[in-house]
Every structure is written in C-alpha cells, then in structure tokens.
C-alpha cells in the first residue's frame, strides 16, 4: 500500500474537521479526492504531508508512519499546497535549485533540468516567479513538488484558477506523472476526475462518503456529478 490511512481524525478546537476516515491507496494509482468546500480535504492532505499532526488515528506512506517518522515521509512525498505558495522574488531555476537542496536531492542539476522538462518551463526558467502568469506559477509549484522524484504526489487543487488550455496542460503533466507515481489530488472539477483518476474518494463534513474505483462507477451509468451530489447528501433543486 502506498498511502494507508486508519481512522484519521482532526479536531480544530471543538470542531471536527476530519472524522475517523480510513482508506488504502495501492501504489501507482491516481486518486481523485473530492468533497465540498470545508469537507476536510486539505486538512487530510496536511496531515499526510506532516504539516499538522492528526488528533488521533494513524497513517503511513509507503509503510513509513506519518507521525513517528515525519521527516522520512517528507523525503518521499511531493506536496503542492492549496493556492500554490511560492517565493515570488526568486528566479525559477533558483527556486527549484533551492527546493532540490532542501529536499536532499543528490544530483541537483539533473533534478532541476528534469523537473523543468516535465513541467515544460524551459522558456520561463530565467524569469522571476513573480513575473509569471498563474498557469506557469502552477507549473513551478508542480515542479517543486516533483523535484526529488517522490513516490507519492499530494496535490491540493492543482488546477484551480487556470484557464481551460492551462487546465488541460497541467492535467497532461499529472497524467504522465501518474504512470509511475501514486497521486492523490483534490479538485472540484468532475471532468478532471473522469479524465485522470483511477479511483474516487469523496468526503463530506469530515466523513468518508464514498470510495470506489472509476471502473465500477462507470458501470453504474450515471454521471459523476450526480454521484457527487448523492454522496454529499445534496438534494437536487433544479
């Protein structure tokens, strides 16, 4: 199992953000992580990447415990946080080199070149990140996440706020990555899930609402949007 989560729970004060969710993701799968805003998607991802510890429950990535060996987990996980934070005053290559260095990459030059190539940043590599458009910034964020050739990629809304062409481009990048990596990505766009994912996990108000493979969903013959509404108890008003 690449990502294993067992009864993961997070309280913010009295509020329950994530309520005892469990799932297993085998290596090599691309999983769509869905749910309405505030469902606990980002919180779950933050717990998996070691940014915040869970209140209770356990999780492991490639067999390494996310609480006990947080530092080791971070070495094999690539993470793109929501809103894609970046150092705007750094140059693209400078930023990626810095990220490679703190990710303890052995051959930094090769890693940077590879990340730039995968995300097709060749033409922007000497620009300041602050000068880039949103789509290119997203690529820099993605390049940062995969600079150390992680086994697992955790991407929090990688395509939000991009124009349709950029969405397709980023999607293609993720698809290529999905060939040899485990990817957990959250999104609000249903077509995206259909286009990229092998499996769908839906959470609602912190609870696991659905966990099914794309194949079995397709057999049900209803579209994903309806499934999503049903899973999150949304009554159709139209």
């Amino acid at each position, binding site marked *: 199992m690449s990502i294993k989560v067992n009864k993961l729970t997070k309280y913010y004060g009295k509020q329950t953000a994530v309520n005892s969710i469990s799932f297993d993701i085998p290596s090599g799968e691309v999983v769509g992580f869905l749910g309405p805003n505030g469902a606990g998607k980002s919180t779950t991802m933050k717990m998996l990447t070691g940014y*915040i*510890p869970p209140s209770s429950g356990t999780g492991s990535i490639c067999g390494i415990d996310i609480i006990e060996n947080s*530092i080791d987990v971070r070495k094999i*996980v690539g993470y793109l*946080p929501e809103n894609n*934070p970046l150092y705007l005053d750094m140059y693209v290559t400078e930023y990626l080199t810095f990220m490679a260095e*703190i*990710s303890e990459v052995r051959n930094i030059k090769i890693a940077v070149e590879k990340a730039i190539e995968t995300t097709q940043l060749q033409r922007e590599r000497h620009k300041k990140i602050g000068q880039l458009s949103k789509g290119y910034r997203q690529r820099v964020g993605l390049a940062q996440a995969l600079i150390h050739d992680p086994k697992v990629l955790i991407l929090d809304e990688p395509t939000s706020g991009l124009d349709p062409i950029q969405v397709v481009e980023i999607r293609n990048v993720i698809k290529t990555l999905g060939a040899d990596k485990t990817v957990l990505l959250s999104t609000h766009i249903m077509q995206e899930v259909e286009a990229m994912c092998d499996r769908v996990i839906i959470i609602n108000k912190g609870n696991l609402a659905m966990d099914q493979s794309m194949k079995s969903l397709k057999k049900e013959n209803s579209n994903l949007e309806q499934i999503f509404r049903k899973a999150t108890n949304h009554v159709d008003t139209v």
Partner: protein
Amino acid sequence: MWTLYKKEIRSFLGSLIAYIVMGVYLLLTGLFLWFVDGNNLFDLGVASLQVMFDISPFILIFLVSAITMRSISEEKRLGTLEIITTKPLTDRSIILSKFFASVSLIILTLLPTLFYVYAIYNLAQPVGNIDLGSTAGSYLGLILLAACYASIGLFSSAITDNQIVALITSMVISFFFYSVLSMLGDIDWLDQIGKSLSWFGLEYHFDSISRGVIDTRDVIFFLGFSSIFLGFTQLVFESRKW
C-alpha cells in the same frame, strides 16, 4: 541548514531592506560620531568610539526589527511556510538559519565602521592612543546584543502574519529589555529590587562588556537570552500542531 541560511542571505541582499539598514546605520553613527554638535568626537576631545557605542543599541533596536520583521510573517502570509515545513527540515533548523542570517547581516553592517576605528586610531595624540580592548569588547557586545534583538524579532515575526505588527512588537520588546529594565535600577524607591531587575536588562551586560573585560557571565547572559527567545519562537512555530 546551510542551504536555508544561504537562501536567507540571498533574499536579504536581493531586497532593499539590507541596503537601507546598512545605509541608515552608517549614516546615523557617522553623523553622531563626527558632525552632530555638542557630543561629537571633536567636542569631547577623546579618541574613542564611545559616542557610536552609546547610540548603536538604540539604532539597532529599529534596524534589527526591520531585518527580522518579514522573515517568518511573510512566509506565513504567502503560505510558503507550508512548503518548507513539509520538506525534510526540522522547525529548529528553519528558525536557526533565519537567526544566523539576521545576525550575519548585522555583522556585515558593523564592518564598515571599522574604518572609524582606523581613523580615530590615527587621529589620536599620540597615534594609537585608543583603548582597543574596550573597542573590541564593545563590538562583541554589539554583536551579542544584535543577536538578542534578532531572537526577539523572530519571535515577533512568528506571532503574526503582518510585518508592521511584527516590527512594532519587536521594537517594544527590545526597548523594554534594553532600556526600561535598566531605568528601573535608577528609581530610588525601588532600591534593591530595581537594581536586581536591571541585572536582567540587556544594557547592564552591554555596559559591562563594553568596558573591555569580557566576562563569561555577560556572554552567557546574552546567549541564554537569545536561546530563550528562539525557544519561544519555536513554540509559536509549532503551535500550528496543537
């Protein structure tokens, strides 16, 4: 940690703040030392940098706070903190590299004033009649003092995501520990209590080290003081995990 340190230094030198800090420091100390009437070197007629060492702690309160104000708050605001804290780095190494980078920048700022030392050394009658021990002690004192200010600055920067709030908090805390505590020692009716409180002030130890006798107790006080505030910084830093 070395990588983070280099990155901090680069971002200092890439931003205007570093140059403004250096410029302002040299300008103010230069003015007070050579030009401002009443208290300058020629009025006093003594070959020493005492004037500079008297005002530097106050200038540094402002300058060190300006250097450290964005170091954590800006990363919080931009969200980049989430990126570096999910890389294989410990929180401590992140804080320490920011701390050492800030102290290095202050040392860099102090370096050009060695020219003043050289000038005064040659102006003295006879040439070289200057208390080098006391001068060296004062420089060491300034660096240690700046380290304390930097730890206060980082703490202030960690508690907010607003640079201005960080700047003001840092200046107030620094002023309190440098000046206010030692003022308490001068209040008659506080007597021994005031005297003991002033021992906890930074000025007491800075004055002591400035005399040129490097007392390990003073050095330990400065280092301990910085460590305590760096510890507080780490606590705040980890509060996201609570």
